[in-house]
């Protein structure tokens, strides 16, 4: 629908620290929607400007996910928002950063972050002045993850240069009470969009362009219009959303000198919103989706259209930002992606109880990196999390993905209320047998994120919460109000306060796994149908060659995927006898060839003819590029967008 023109247009802004490699999907959708209204809309990715200011390598270092929990990105801009004595900053560098960095990394972070901090004021003022010179009608600033401080500093500076500009904040950091806290605390923010802005922003823009200086729109809170009177609208018909326009991102990426040689830009895409698992059983620590857990997905045809359209313009590697894969897609979208000549390659979040047919379907469709939420390898702890999977299913996922050449992205978290400390010693022993499978990227305590069950009902779990340690160094001087701004929280309870101590063996086992993994292999080297040869170098020594007996080989074949011990015994007993079968199973368990959970068994060696160990992402990419059977030609950037 066309609206009256808006002099100055709409400007959507994304501040550091955010990815230099992928466009902001939310802003891109909103920009497409505003342009459909006939109003000029530009997206400003100021992370590139900051990367140019401090150097791309420094930017990539400071924004690396390893240091995310230190909130470095927020700290660097925080002094522009909250004055503080230098002693507090010294305390941050000495007491917070070392929690997440090695000693040498701490020194490097200190040096690089202090330089970045010095550059921050000039950068913010320069960017604000540049935008003010464009006489923007309306400015929308997105803030998620570590963008609050830079966003507030920018908004303050923009108001100084252009007091008449209306500034609207949105993004995950504005969800519900978080957005209200920002609006109430900072005069530079005129309005906040909480939740999905797909209908709220166009409605606001339409009314604004028509002359309403501060429109009242559901989902947007202003000083005159509190949020509880204007709940936002959750989008249910995702098919009706525009296809996002990433031209601003790619244009800015291309203009950043030298970046093309260092990074590969990757388009983002969403096929669904919410979480179908969380809607039934909310994982206890998960705060994603805020108040929009209800699961909605695009029709397969609509999703495929977007994949193909975006691949034609931006290339066929994608980051899918969904929180979980729609299982209905296994029978619809995935076969369509598989059969499309475009060589799709994508990252997807999934649930970890995957069967072989699921994993094969994902690999065939180009889903070669998954984030399945494995979290731990103990069934009792998984139950405490309400994950809906058991430990053996998690190990099976790691194994089957290794065989299929799918990279598994996961983190090991600990410290759950109600957990049994002895679980960690058992897992430490178990992990020594899994070195050929993908190790976790990190070992870290679980947090209670805002909107999670731990946060909303702490009494139910017997825990006490406080804002994560870095927050008081960011929101310096807010005192008791700190809890209004915090998203991540530390948990405390008598049974988990010693978690750092009783998980020590497991921590060391994880580190050992990470270190050993590149050399560890465990696979079926030969299978004659009668006997089987295994090659095993999981323990770091020379590769050992083991020949299994016919009985043992039969058992391993039956346990290629999880199988019940009773079924295995029934299958092999006629030839070998029940007693021999039981002894063989015990031997295979003892030697770490089988794993067991209750009455289920799983063979650990990777299948004959597959990778000998979980492949690296570089190996997978190389294989995919080699196998690509259809030349689609280079992506055509700047092509007219339809």
């Amino acid at each position, binding site marked *: 629908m066309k609206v009256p023109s808006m002099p100055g247009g709409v400007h959507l802004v994304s501040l550091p620290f955010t990815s230099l490699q992928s466009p902001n999907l939310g802003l891109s959708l909103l920009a497409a929607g505003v342009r459909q209204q006939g109003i000029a809309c530009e997206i400003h990715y100021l992370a590139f400007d900051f990367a140019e200011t401090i150097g791309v390598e420094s930017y990539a270092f400071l924004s690396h996910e390893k240091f995310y929990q230190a909130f470095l990105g927020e700290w660097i801009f925080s002094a522009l928002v909250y004055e503080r004595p230098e002693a507090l*900053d010294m305390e941050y560098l000495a007491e917070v950063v070392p929690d997440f960095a090695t000693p040498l990394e701490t020194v490097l972070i200190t040096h690089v972050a202090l330089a970045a901090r010095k550059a921050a004021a000039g950068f913010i003022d320069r960017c604000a002045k540049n935008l003010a010179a464009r006489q923007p009608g309306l400015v929308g600033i997105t803030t998620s993850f570590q963008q609050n401080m830079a966003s507030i500093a920018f908004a303050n500076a923009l108001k100084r240069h252009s007091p008449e500009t209306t500034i609207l904040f949105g993004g995950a950091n504005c969800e519900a009470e978080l957005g209200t806290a920002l609006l109430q605390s900072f005069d530079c923010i005129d309005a906040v969009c909480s939740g999905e802005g797909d209908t709220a922003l166009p409605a606001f823009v339409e009314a604004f362009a028509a002359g309403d200086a501060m429109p009242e729109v559901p989902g947007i809170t202003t000083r005159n219009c509190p949020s509880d009177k204007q709940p936002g609208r959750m989008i249910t018909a995702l098919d009706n959303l525009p296809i996002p326009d990433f031209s601003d991102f790619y244009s800015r990426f291309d203009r950043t000198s030298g970046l093309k040689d260092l990074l590969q830009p990757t388009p983002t895409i969403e096929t669904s919103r919410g979480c179908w698992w969380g809607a039934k059983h909310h994982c206890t620590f998960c705060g994603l989706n805020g108040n929009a857990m209800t699961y909605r997905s695009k029709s397969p045809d609509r999703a495929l259209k977007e994949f193909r359209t975006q691949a034609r313009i931006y290339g066929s590697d994608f980051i899918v930002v969904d929180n979980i894969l729609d299982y209905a897609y296994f029978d619809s979208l995935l076969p369509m992606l598989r059969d499309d000549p475009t060589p799709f390659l994508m990252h997807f979040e999934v649930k970890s109880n995957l069967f072989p047919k699921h994993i094969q379907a994902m690999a065939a469709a180009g889903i070669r990196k998954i984030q399945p939420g494995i979290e731990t390898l103990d069934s009792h702890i998984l139950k405490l999390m309400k994950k809906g999977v058991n430990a053996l299913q998690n190990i099976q996922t790691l194994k089957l993905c290794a065989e299929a050449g799918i990279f598994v992205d996961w983190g090991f978290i600990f410290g759950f209320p109600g957990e049994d400390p002895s679980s960690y010693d058992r897992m430490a022993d178990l992990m020594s047998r899994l070195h050929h499978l993908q190790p976790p990227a990190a070992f870290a305590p679980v947090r209670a994120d805002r909107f999670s069950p731990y946060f909303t009902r702490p009494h139910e779990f017997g825990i006490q919460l406080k804002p994560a340690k870095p927050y008081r160094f960011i929101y310096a001087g807010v005192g008791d109000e700190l809890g209004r701004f915090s998203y991540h929280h530390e948990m405390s309870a008598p049974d988990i306060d010693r978690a750092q101590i009783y998980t020590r063996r497991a921590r060391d086992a994880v580190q050992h796994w990470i270190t050993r993994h590149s050399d560890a292999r465990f696979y079926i080297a030969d299978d004659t149908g009668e006997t089987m040869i295994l090659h095993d170098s999981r323990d770091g020594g020379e590769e050992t060659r083991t020949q299994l007996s016919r009985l043992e080989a039969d058992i391993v074949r039956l346990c290629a995927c999880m199988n019940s011990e009773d079924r295995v015994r029934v299958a092999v007993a006629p030839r070998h006898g029940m007693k021999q079968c039981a002894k063989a199973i015990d031997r295979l368990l003892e030697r770490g060839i089988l794993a067991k959970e209750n009455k289920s068994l799983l063979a650990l060696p990777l299948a004959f003819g597959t990778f000998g160990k979980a492949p690296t992402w570089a190996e997978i990419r190389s294989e995919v590029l080699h196998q690509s059977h259809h030349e689609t030609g280079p992506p055509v950037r700047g092509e007219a967008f339809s």
Partner: protein
Amino acid sequence: MADDEHTHGHRQLKLDDVQMIIGRAVVDEHFRTQFTGDPIGTLKTLGISMTVGGERDEKAVTLVKTIADALSEENHGANLADLLKNLRKSYLDSADGIIRSRCA
């Protein structure tokens, strides 16, 4: 200048000093040896005090000792600058553009 910024001709440690110290320790092996051996004493020779208002500035001392310990932890030799350069570059190489906030 405020009285507590200068004590007996010394001034209080500032964040700018921290940056300078790290920069110098990385490239100057002699300074690094001196600093890691006696961080407080070395800063005193530069006119920097670890006190504020006559009291020991514990935050400053902790930070300085953290840095000194890190730089002395391994025998870096003349390669520390390269080591840190490669460390910083490695994070660029391993970045995949995906922001993961749920765990470390």
